[in-house]
């Protein structure tokens, strides 16, 4: 990713400017199943609960936000991004690639996996393949593609296909940088799987860094506090 940005940056180094910003998430957005099934307790069988991730939940939420630019169509040929299958999980579970690029899905588990997607931008089924094999998928259209495994319903991954190379997964701290953005008027989009899409327009002037912040709440809750959508 850094490589991508660096490559893009070198093309428009003269006129480009950085967009920096912070994503603020104040609540847990992703409901996680931490309660074991009731069946575990039956007949007094002692069951070890899975240890909670030591990651801060808000860090987790912030790191699962993708920020990208809209309004700049520029296809690039970038090297394929890897989404591994390990321990019955996609790792990483969220990748972002510019349209036209590929993602490879290598299987590092000793068991079969069958990666597929039924999402509109790209639907595919890679079939069953065992450890050591890999399959590659090229994503032509921008959009969000959810990836699953036929054999393991708990496995889920997300590929965010962006219209251009200015896309970044936010740091756990909430910081993001879109480097060397050519001057112009764009929409900056922040996407979170559960919270949805947030847009802000920005005009980038040459040589002048700008800053844009997002507040990512949950989608509107009926009768609850209306979420504040920055930039509207």
């Amino acid at each position, binding site marked *: 990713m850094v490589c991508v940005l660096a490559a893009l940056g070198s093309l428009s180094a003269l006129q480009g400017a950085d967009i920096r910003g912070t994503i603020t998430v104040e609540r847990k957005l992703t409901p996680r199943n931490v309660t*074991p*099934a009731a*069946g*575990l*307790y*039956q*007949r007094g*069988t002692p*069951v070890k609960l899975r240890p909670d991730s030591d990651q801060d939940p808000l860090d987790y939420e912030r790191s699962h936000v993708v920020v990208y630019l809209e309004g700049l169509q520029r296809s690039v040929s970038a090297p394929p991004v890897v989404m591994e299958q390990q321990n*019955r999980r996609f790792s990483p579970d969220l990748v972002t690639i510019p349209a036209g690029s590929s993602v490879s899905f290598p299987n590092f588990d*000793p*068991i*079969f996996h*069958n990666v597929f997607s039924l999402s509109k931008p790209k639907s595919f089924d890679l079939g*069953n393949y*065992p*450890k050591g094999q890999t399959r590659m998928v090229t994503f032509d259209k921008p959009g969000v593609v959810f990836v699953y495994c*036929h*054999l*393991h*319903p*708990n496995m889920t991954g997300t590929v965010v296909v962006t219209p251009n190379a200015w896309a970044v997964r936010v740091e756990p701290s909430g910081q993001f940088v879109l480097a060397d953005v050519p001057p112009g008027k764009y929409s900056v989009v922040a996407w979170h799987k559960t919270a949805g899409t947030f847009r802000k327009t920005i005009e980038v002037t040459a040589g002048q860094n700008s800053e844009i912040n997002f507040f990512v709440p949950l989608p509107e809750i009926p009768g609850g506090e209306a979420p504040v959508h920055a930039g509207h």
Partner: protein
Amino acid sequence: MRFSTRAFLWSFLPFTCLLAGSFWAARTAALSAVKEGLRSAERDSQVTLAKERERSDLKNIRILRVAAENPALKAGLQLLATEDLTPDAARRTVEDQLSEICDTMGFDFLAVSSPSGDPLAGVVRGKEGFAPVKFDSLRLPASGFFSMQDQIFRVTSVAIAQGQESVGTLAVGERFDVAEVAMPAVLLRGGSVIAASAPGVASSKVEAALRKCGPQAECEVQMAGETYLSVPLDSSQTENQQFTLRSLRSLDAAAAPVQAALRGVFLSAGLTALLGAFAIAAFSSKSIVKPLAKVVARLREGGKTGVLPEFPSGQQRVREIRELTDSFNHAAASIQDGRDQLVRAYVEFVSSLASALDARDPYTAGHSQRVSEYSCAIARAMAVPADELEIIRVGALLHDIGKIGISDAVLQKPGKLTAEEEALIQQHPVIGRKILECVQGFDAYLQVVELHHENWGGGGYPRGLTGEETPRSARIVKVADAYDAMTSDRPYRRGMRHEEAVRILEKCAGTQLDPSAVQAFLSLGEDPMLDSLHRLSAVVRTGAAQETPV
């Protein structure tokens, strides 16, 4: 055997037997009723539990159907069916899926089999997560038990269907612990016990006892002296393993508290009844025997004294006893009559002998009869008891019987007797005694016969007794004899007049004669009987000699 013992035994023993028999019968009936009730209750509860298990199995199957509808698992099965290159990886994939399902749903064992029944993959819960199962020759039953690695599992199977087609079988197992069955139970594999929760019974005995039971039949078995009821709860059969789960509960143990209580009740009631029976038997035997015992005691006393007892008639309340005493009285009276007659006959015989003796000499004729009458009069005046009076009467009649042994020459000798003759005469009391000694029943008269010549002051014959050493009867007869002798005529002198004889009697009182007897005689002075006697004697004498004024 005593009559009371006999009466007691004959009332107590049959009573006891009857009582013991009826108590035993009642106890047996009660116990068997209790046992039968418990048995049917036990059977009902076991059958109900067996049905409950079936119902819960059905409920479990519904849940398992949901598990079998897992698309991922179906995809895994499809992979397993089609993957030829890396079958191990495919099996691992399915095992991994099964582990996940087990983990989520809390199963201990989960396996999939092909539609033909060959096991494809399975996992079992261990201490460290789930481990794959190595099926070598192991075949899973559609439903029921199987053992693996020394553990017993109970499985339930559901078909995994894809549309109309069955793509396999999902077998869900849970570790089976016989202690979790809601009643004492044993699990048998091919006839041998592999798990039991029935306490206190050896496995070998259970096996031997249950061998006679049909595999699906409830039965009662005897082990170590106890009756157990065994109801089949569950069974399963595969090619090489046959399992049967049977309940095994002791009916006796269930009946034991009731039995103990019943035993206590019957024991205490029986003992009380026995004591009652004993007391009643003792009392009744005593009461039966009591009147008879009185009679017997009196008879025994009579036996000792020789006096025939007489029972007062009409006093016995018991009719039989009354009849007994009455007839005894009759018999005794007859015996007494006979005895009296006999004695009377003797007395009459002997007195007629004496009369004959008297009659040899006209001077002594009627002497014995008169002495007897005088003696009776004196005795009556002295208020002598009736029996002694009778002795005196008869004794006086016989008093001179001994003179039979004295020759007439001496007896009837007129004039003075020589010393030898005197000594001869003095032998007559002893001779009389000797004569009468031989006659039974004359003992009472011997003293009068022997001692009527003893003197009050001593010097009499034959023994020379003094005072009261001589019996009163003899003393009285001596006074009467003296009087008659003095008032009778003799060949050598005329009889004295009454007053003169009385004077001599008074003179001799205290020396030869008993003063009290003499006194009694004197008191008879105006006695009409004595008068009549005098008159009579005078007439007799007149018949023999001349008239004598009285």
